[in-house]
């Protein structure tokens, strides 16, 4: 099949345009990069900053401890994310229940989301990790577990609202179709409403999980040593801030895959909508 001269011309023109825009992008990136390097390294205090924030020897020395701390962050993140998603979904479902029997349950679920979205995480952490053990009850879990619970209750307050928004975004005609087939309310939720709702709110759910990843480190306020706390200990020993930079880089690397997944899911959802 031969193309008309007009189409061949269009293809050739577009190819030239593409090449041109790649060149422009490369050039502007280079210029900006050079400007940044010159501005930072040319600053009057650059040598002192480099010594106290970017010392390779201190970075090497602190890396094992910071990594050990990071492993705690990863484990906490995993269990807290699973726990908060499960509890958030449960609270959201309780808020959608209808009928007078469920009034107290609805009230409780609503109060829960109001309280834990309003209460600063640090206060919940202190109450859980320092207040609860003070009761001297038998079988009190470790500080780490109590801190994890504090994270779960706080984050599930947010996630519950995200889930609820998803549930309410499913059009009533979908409920009518499901009920008209004889499905019960519970079956309608499980097979028709929730699958659509969760798909729709997957991007904000993942976004909150990225935020959780940074907040799990706050359990170190109660004792357990996470990556940031490990960096702080090293900094106090060496009077050098490099360990913080090490921890920061590790956090960004840890978040990158999760953020990439979030972007991908968001993009896919947007494509499905169109």
């Amino acid at each position, binding site marked *: 099949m031969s193309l008309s001269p007009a189409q061949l011309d269009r293809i050739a023109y577009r190819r030239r345009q593409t090449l041109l825009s790649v060149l422009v992008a490369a050039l502007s990136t280079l210029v900006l990069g050079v400007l940044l390097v010159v501005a930072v390294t040319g600053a009057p205090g650059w040598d002192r900053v480099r010594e106290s924030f970017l010392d390779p020897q201190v970075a090497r020395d602190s890396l094992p401890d910071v990594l050990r701390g990071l492993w705690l962050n990863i484990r906490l993140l995993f269990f807290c994310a699973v726990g908060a998603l499960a509890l958030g979904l449960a609270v959201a479902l309780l808020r959608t229940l209808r009928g007078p029997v469920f009034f107290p349950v609805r009230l409780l679920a609503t109060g829960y989301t109001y309280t834990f979205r309003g209460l600063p995480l640090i206060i919940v952490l202190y109450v859980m990790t320092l207040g609860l053990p003070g009761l001297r009850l038998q079988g009190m879990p470790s500080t780490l577990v109590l801190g994890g619970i504090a994270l779960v209750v706080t984050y599930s307050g947010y996630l519950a609202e995200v889930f609820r928004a998803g549930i309410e975004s499913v059009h009533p005609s979908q409920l009518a179709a499901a009920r*008209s087939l004889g499905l019960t309310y519970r079956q309608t939720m499980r097979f028709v409403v929730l699958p659509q709702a969760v798909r729709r709110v997957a991007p904000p759910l993942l976004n909150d999980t990225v935020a959780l990843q940074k907040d799990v480190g706050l359990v170190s306020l109660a004792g357990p040593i996470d990556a940031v706390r490990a960096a702080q200990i090293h900094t106090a020993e060496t009077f050098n801030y490099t360990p913080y930079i090490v921890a920061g880089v590790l956090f960004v690397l840890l978040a990158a895959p999760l953020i990439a997944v979030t972007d991908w899911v968001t993009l896919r959802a947007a494509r499905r909508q169109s």
Partner: protein
Amino acid sequence: MSLLACRGVRKLFGDHVVLDGLDFDVAEHEVVALIGASGSGKSTLLRCVNLLEELDDGTIHLDGEHITDPRADPDKVRQRIGIVFQAYNLFPHMTVLENVVLAPVRVHGMPRQAARDLALEWLGRVGLAEKAGAYPDRLSGGQQQRVAIVRALVNSPRLLLLDEVTSALDPELVGEVLSMIRDLKSDGVTMVLATHEMGFARQVADRVCFLDGGRVLEQGPPEKVFAEPVEARTRQFLGRIIEAGRL
């Protein structure tokens, strides 16, 4: 005894009276067309029969059973009535096959394999077997509506309600849905259809009911209602339809 019996059905939306003491009967294997202006209560009547709306007065009996009794289990009642909506309302996250087998498996406890076989047989009958694995957004409006009808029919309902099932379709896709309904009539499926397709109502319906003022104002065989309407309001309505070139 009639399959469906509505007595003195009243339904209000706020202060607006949609159904005002309506009486309506459907015999087994009968096909009844509900006609009337927009807002005359055709859709509302169908939604009341399927218990998607609560009555403000009156009773509805199905097979002699009082289904608008608040003590009756609405899920059990709906299992015996199929409804097809104007906007299809297929489940977008399920394939065509999953849409169709959902109720047989989850509501009627049919084994998964048997439900699949039954669904594929039905989809084959309406020429959609090769679409079984597709998602609804890959289908044309006419195809989606035929899937929606199959989804209602696999449950062998006693009564099939069709709520303006061709209103959202492009004109060239209306035919495929109407011919499917014609086939169902020869199978003996009892149907009530709210419709604006007067030509089709004339062909397929055993009886035409003209709704006006929240009641059945006039009813009878289509040739009689369309050719020599008794009521002035019916004549006026049909006159407007003819003017619009729809009859």
